[in-house]
């Protein structure tokens, strides 16, 4: 099995695992225990990880709030800002292509009387700054847009969005989960106020994430999980010390390798795209080719039915334009204008640290075989009406 689904999750890097190991059994203190050595050790480990994570994000360590993952970080950003918004700022702007963990808390705001604008995107998937400018106003509390897309990999023009939103006094949040460790991320250069991250997308453990909260922005938020004063009062709950240590270590590893790895993955991705075009044929790219995550390729394969294609691909792990067998096409692909059947017969390839050129070539061969087999099985276009029917 060749694993090409690194947008879904990544394996824990052995260096990260080694860094985490002592924090399960030997250094087990509660980072909030201030009265003994065990607590201090845990606290120090968390603060070291906070610095490591902040460094990769381009943030100050005090601006990093650890969470249970990106879904919680997205909820804290959206519900947290909404809870503190003044009565005359009850409007939020997002994109139709956002991850469900953004769209769901945004949809919940509608129930409380908020105005929500879900901006459409052009076929390339990259929003026009002008479209954002057209809908953001003095009533807007928050604009939220994904930095790099989890399905089609396209990178949104966040700096431009920030410029527009800030001119109206609105805050900007970005779900930067897929970007961290893959692309250089600098939250201060982008100018965003809030950014969500997840450790398991960059070879860290599952169950830990972070929300970057720009200094001062915490005054415009309220916590979602309450009952503890952890994380500057923005997120109650005992800190996941081994997970946080792993997140920090994963960030430290990534910061040393990001430039070379991005170039390597881009080369492999281009090799994959060339191979699919040459050996599978009748494939088309979903979303603009650039700017895009270096390890991402999302393609529609013509002439095959989506479910059968996915079931046939037994030698590679990829993601499709549908949740497996649910037959519900991806909302993001539909938003690009793809017909339902084209969305269903689309494949998302996510290349990662373990992917080799040999893996890519084998994947191309396998896809070509399976698609060839299915296309051979398909009848030619239907004979004229009424004939032998």
């Amino acid at each position, binding site marked *: 099995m060749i694993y090409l689904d690194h947008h879904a999750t990544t394996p824990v890097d052995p260096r990260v695992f080694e860094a985490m190991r002592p924090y399960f059994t030997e250094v087990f203190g509660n980072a909030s225990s201030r009265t003994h050595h065990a607590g201090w050790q845990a606290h120090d480990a968390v603060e070291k990880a906070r610095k490591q994570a902040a460094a990769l994000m381009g943030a100050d360590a005090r601006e990093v709030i650890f969470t249970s993952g990106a879904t919680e970080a997205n909820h804290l950003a959206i519900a947290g800002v909404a809870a503190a918004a003044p009565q005359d700022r009850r409007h939020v702007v997002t994109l139709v292509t956002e991850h469900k963990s953004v769209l769901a808390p945004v949809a919940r705001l509608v129930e409380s009387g908020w105005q929500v604008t879900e901006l459409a995107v052009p076929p390339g998937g990259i929003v026009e700054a002008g479209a954002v400018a057209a809908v953001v106003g003095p009533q807007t509390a928050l604009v939220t847009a994904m930095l790099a897309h989890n399905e089609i990999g396209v990178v949104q023009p966040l700096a431009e969005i920030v410029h527009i939103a800030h001119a109206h006094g609105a805050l900007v949040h970005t779900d930067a989960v897929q970007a961290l460790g893959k692309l250089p991320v600098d939250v201060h250069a982008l100018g965003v106020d809030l950014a969500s991250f997840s450790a398991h997308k960059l070879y860290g453990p599952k169950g830990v994430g972070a929300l970057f909260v720009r200094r001062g922005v915490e005054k415009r938020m309220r916590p979602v999980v309450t009952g503890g004063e952890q994380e500057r009062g923005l997120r109650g709950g005992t800190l996941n010390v081994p997970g946080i240590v792993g997140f920090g270590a994963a960030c430290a590893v990534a910061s040393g390798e990001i430039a070379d790895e991005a170039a390597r993955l881009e080369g492999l991705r281009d090799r994959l795209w060339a191979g699919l075009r040459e050996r599978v044929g009748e494939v088309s790219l979903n979303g603009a080719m650039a700017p895009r995550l270096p390890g991402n390729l999302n393609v529609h394969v013509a002439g095959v*039915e989506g479910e*059968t294609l996915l*079931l046939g691909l037994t030698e590679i792990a990829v993601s499709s334009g549908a949740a497996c067998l649910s037959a519900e096409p991806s909302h993001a692909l539909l938003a690009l204008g793809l017909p339902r059947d084209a969305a269903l017969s689309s494949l998302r390839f996510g290349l990662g640290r373990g992917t080799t050129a040999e893996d890519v070539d084998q994947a191309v061969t396998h896809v070509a075989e399976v698609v060839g087999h299915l296309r*051979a099985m*398909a*009848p030619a*276009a239907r004979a004229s009406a009424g004939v*032998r029917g």
Partner: protein
Amino acid sequence: MAYSAAVLDRVRNPQRVGVLPDAPEVGTGEAGSMDAGTFARIQVRVEQGRIVAARFKVFGCSAAIAATGLVAEWLEGASLAEAGLVTPERVVQHLQLPEERVHVAAVAVDAARHAVRDAGRRQDERHD
């Protein structure tokens, strides 16, 4: 929704995919549509009241591939009377098709019935 081993095996190792060389003994039937997501074409070669060969082509989900392949298998070697006993219900039961995929059995069986009828019509024309 999950497919039975019978469905998965027929998708991975389909038998009788293809077309029969055109001949007066060969009948062709089609059912469904590409737009609707399931389109089946079955061909039968009938000699002395018995189906001596059956081939199929199909576009659709795994259940559609398995159902059309199963119908072709059942047709081959069957008498015309036996061919009439191939029903969607039997296909659903044999393949343990999930509720959401039951309709594809009807498409496969319709294609088969049209193919048998077409073969009969062509033979009648020959005897005219």
